[in-house]
């Protein structure tokens, strides 16, 4: 599999987590010493004094029993023994508690992991309770939510763990009844022996089953797809009852005895330091416990300089924050300006291809010069912000302790172990003296792959004297201090032959490099952190996702170059990073080409997928995050999704008057997605998306309801993306709240038809890959309706509005 591309702006903690994933089996189930901390906590939290039967087995014991090592975890790596007891606990009462190791960020993995475990355990879903597993990499290996990888990376592990526990229950029954295990069957938490008409519930067998050896993964037969009773069906979310009754689940809901609430004001231009602040005055305000300057580490992924206010409650903290008067030293702070970038990018494009070559195959210039038809297009897209509904928050409690200072954290994060280790490190707490509690996350979208707020909370708790502190960001904080989805520019040239076939493609990525890095174009300034020395590489989400990505491998003469401008505002991964802009660029320009050729776009796109080229000498760069975990686009799968969406949407058939279709395909995160938008545009340039038809190949679907929900959300987000931007001037973000940052509201949500192809490829997650093609499907439909090519995002800049 591919590793994370070196040229991406990832914090070290994410890189570490992905490395854990790559060694998953070895780390999670190896024979080495296993921390009991997390597991002890889980049993204590859930057991409540109940006699625990199955589920007490630990790694050491499993190994001592000679548990064979398992293999085939889906991501390679050395095989290691299964340890179902860390995922499954069966009480004599019959209650089956399943532990989900993945943070729940709205992607549905808490339910998804439960469904996968329960399927091959053959559990009755009504007996099942799913709990969030403790954060403990010693037991669970990687525990992160990102890259749409959770389904794929947990698929075999969860199913095999369920099957192993089932086999142990069957062994216990076989022993009890004195019959061969092969004569026993299971269904809905019951073991049955048909010949003697005997039955035993899982609960009644649990104690005996716990003493059975853990079978080898190789000896386990997972259920055939045709025998699935849960997987592939619609299973409502396991937290839904708690959600609809308003129970505390989220990081923002944490309440601890003697807890104080903190707010933190940073410089609106990243890199600014506090010269002077009226902390004396702030400390006297009602409800305020303390106020102080935080020096910070100078890294946006950790703690930037600012002023912290600690108060008795949230409102006192918010009210005091409004009274803050801070003089900022902005000598090295960001002066970034979108207006200036836009001007510079256009000048750069006029000079021809970029100096940095990302990929070259064939001879583009020759193909272009000899083309029957030449097509050119310059595209621009502004920055956008994540803005999950739950503002950033973390509760941290730093405690002095003679045995070694301690840190305990509760939070809504996507990389809990990364949050724990980063925060502990900053406050000088040893890794084994820190504990992280994973809360339900009020929206991830990639924002919470960064742990800045967790680091801030820990530092504030320590500086406030070691009291439990809940840090609460305001919406304005969240929008002003994001790791933004990079804006950027792209200059295209395309060549068609006399038959209207694609023969040449040239793309010039005009994006951003880390403006703090020594050696960055125009950079070389000292960084607040003392310089990270990153080279001339695109910021996360600003570069091309993979130099070999479509249509590189399908175009005989292909050229991809890059030019970068230094940027100080931090960028980060947002839902299908890189892909969510690359899809719009590629699929829009592809439509420009088919339009110029006077050809049907579906037919043209299928033709391009049919002209796979031999790999260029020296390779074409990494497969990109798009191909993460399994290589690049599969042309057969791409064509199948396009043909099916064409059929389902009635492409080429008459539509209601004034309605037009737009088609786009994109592959990312191992998901193949073809989407057709049905759009109308009125005389005042008001765009209505009536319907989106989505056909996907993501391999077997684990939870149909959750998968459809992700796709529906992705389509709404695609539409939302057409109307939002954060404008950067003088290093500051203009938009400050939802009144100006206008994410989609209910009236614009279209009818969405979602269809998954029934295939047996490796399963992948659905959180990201449906989003990128939604955007060009809509803009291609706008072109069909108006004959105006949409080369600018948001489209509100072109005078459009979204109905």
């Amino acid at each position, binding site marked *: 599999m591919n590793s994370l591309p070196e040229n991406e702006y990832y914090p070290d903690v994410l890189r570490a987590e992905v490395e854990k994933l790559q060694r998953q089996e070895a780390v999670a189930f190896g024979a080495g010493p296993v921390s009991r901390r997390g597991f002890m906590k889980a049993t204590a939290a859930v057991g409540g004094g109940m006699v625990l039967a199955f589920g007490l087995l630990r790694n050491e014991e499993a190994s001592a029993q000679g548990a064979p090592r398992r293999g085939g975890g889906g991501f390679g790596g050395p095989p290691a023994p299964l340890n179902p007891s860390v995922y499954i606990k069966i009480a004599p009462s019959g209650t089956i508690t399943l532990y989900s190791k993945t943070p729940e960020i709205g992607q549905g993995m808490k339910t998804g992991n439960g469904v996968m475990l329960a399927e091959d355990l053959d559990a009755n879903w009504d007996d099942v309770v799913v709990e969030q597993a403790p954060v403990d990499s010693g037991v669970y290996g990687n525990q992160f939510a990102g890259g749409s990888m959770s389904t794929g990376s947990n698929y075999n592990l969860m199913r095999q763990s369920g099957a192993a526990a089932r086999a142990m229950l069957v062994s216990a029954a076989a022993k009890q009844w004195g019959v061969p295990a092969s004569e026993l069957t299971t269904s809905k938490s019951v073991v049955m022996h048909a010949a003697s008409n005997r039955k035993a519930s899982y609960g009644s067998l649990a104690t005996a089953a716990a003493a059975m050896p853990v079978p080898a993964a190789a000896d386990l037969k997972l259920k055939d797809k045709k025998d699935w009773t849960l997987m592939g069906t619609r299973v409502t979310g396991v937290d839904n009852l708690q959600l609809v009754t308003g129970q505390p689940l989220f990081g923002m809901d944490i309440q601890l005895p003697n807890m104080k609430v903190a707010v933190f004001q940073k410089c609106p231009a990243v890199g600014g330091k506090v010269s002077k602040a009226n902390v004396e005055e702030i400390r006297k305000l009602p409800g305020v416990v303390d106020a102080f300057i935080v020096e910070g580490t100078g890294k946006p992924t950790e703690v930037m300089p600012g002023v912290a206010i600690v108060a008795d409650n949230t409102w006192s903290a918010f009210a005091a924050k409004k009274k803050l008067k801070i003089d900022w030293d902005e000598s090295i702070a960001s002066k970034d300006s979108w207006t200036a970038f836009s001007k510079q990018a256009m000048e750069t494009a006029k000079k021809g291809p970029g100096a940095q070559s990302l990929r070259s195959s064939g001879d583009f210039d020759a193909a272009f010069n000899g083309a029957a038809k030449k097509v050119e297009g310059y595209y621009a897209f502004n920055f956008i912000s994540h803005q999950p509904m739950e503002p950033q928050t973390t509760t941290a409690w730093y405690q002095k302790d003679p045995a070694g200072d301690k840190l305990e954290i509760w939070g809504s994060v996507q990389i809990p172990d990364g949050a724990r280790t980063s925060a502990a490190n900053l406050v000088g707490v040893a890794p084994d003296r820190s504990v992280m509690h994973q809360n339900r996350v009020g929206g991830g979208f990639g924002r919470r792959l960064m742990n800045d707020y967790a680091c801030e909370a820990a530092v504030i708790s320590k500086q406030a004297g070691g009291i439990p502190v809940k840090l609460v960001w305001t919406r304005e904080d969240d929008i002003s201090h994001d790791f933004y989805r990079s804006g950027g520019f792209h200059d295209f040239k395309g060549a068609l032959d006399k038959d209207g076939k694609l023969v040449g493609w040239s793309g010039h990525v005009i994006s951003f490099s880390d403006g703090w890095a020594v050696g960055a174009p125009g950079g070389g300034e000292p960084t607040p952190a003392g310089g990270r020395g990153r080279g001339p590489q695109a910021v996360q989400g600003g570069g091309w996702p993979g130099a070999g990505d479509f249509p590189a491998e399908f175009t005989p003469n292909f050229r991809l170059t890059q030019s970068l401008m230094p940027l100080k505002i931090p960028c980060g991964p947002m839902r299908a990073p890189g892909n969510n802009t690359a899809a719009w660029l590629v699929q829009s320009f592809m439509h420009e080409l088919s339009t110029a050729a006077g050809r049907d776009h579906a037919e043209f796109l299928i033709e391009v997928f049919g002209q796979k080229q031999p790999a260029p000498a020296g390779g074409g760069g990494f497969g990109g995050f798009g191909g993460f975990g399994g290589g690049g686009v599969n042309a057969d799968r791409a064509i199948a999704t396009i043909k099916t969406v064409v059929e389902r949407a009635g492409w080429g058939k008459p539509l209601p008057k004034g309605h037009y279709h737009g088609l786009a395909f994109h592959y990312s995160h191992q998901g193949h997605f073809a989407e057709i938008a049905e759009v109308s545009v009125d005389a005042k340039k008001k765009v209505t998306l009536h319907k989106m038809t989505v056909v996907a190949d993501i391999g077997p679907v684990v939870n149909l309801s959750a998968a459809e929900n992700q796709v529906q959300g992705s389509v709404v987000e695609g539409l939302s993306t057409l109307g939002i931007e954060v404008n950067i001037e003088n290093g500051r973000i203009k938009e400050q709240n939802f009144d100006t940052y206008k994410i989609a509201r*209910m009236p614009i949500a279209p009818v969405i038809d979602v269809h998954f192809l029934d295939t047996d490829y490796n399963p992948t997650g659905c959180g990201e890959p449906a989003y990128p093609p939604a955007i060009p499907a809509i803009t291609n439909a706008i072109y069909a309706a108006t004959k105006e090519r949409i080369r600018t995002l948001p489209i509100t800049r072109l005078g459009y509005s979204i109905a």
Partner: protein
Amino acid sequence: MAKVTLNVNGTDHTVDVPADQPLLWVLRDELKLVGTKFGCGMAQCGACTVHVNGSPVRSCSMPVSGAAGVKITTIEGLSQGGELTAVQKAWIDHDVPQCGYCQSGQIMSATALLRQNKNPSDADIDSYMQGNLCRCGTYVRIRAAIKSAAKALNGSAS
């Protein structure tokens, strides 16, 4: 500081807080009713929606001083006697939530809508619910759940 007596979910609570403190923070920080969510602080997102005498109100922008003598219902007080409401049931049946953070507010708005309009059309739903943001984009499911709940309510009434 001001002493204010609030009737929340049928119970009186007396709190001593600044008069301009929004109801949201009294509910969350003083009464520990954290089902009502903070999203924007300026009545733009609807995550903090509660009922005041049965009508939806953005509690982040309502000073607590204005909440004395009215009946406040929060998401925690919606179901009676352990029985979920038709709206809550429909939310589970349609598996509406993704992250779920906005859903308390969505449910409070939807409940208020169905009190005044027993058979809302798509347009009625869109218009009434547009004050509630869902960043995950669960809008199509919210629409479907409201219609199911309407059907269930009309069925039980007839």
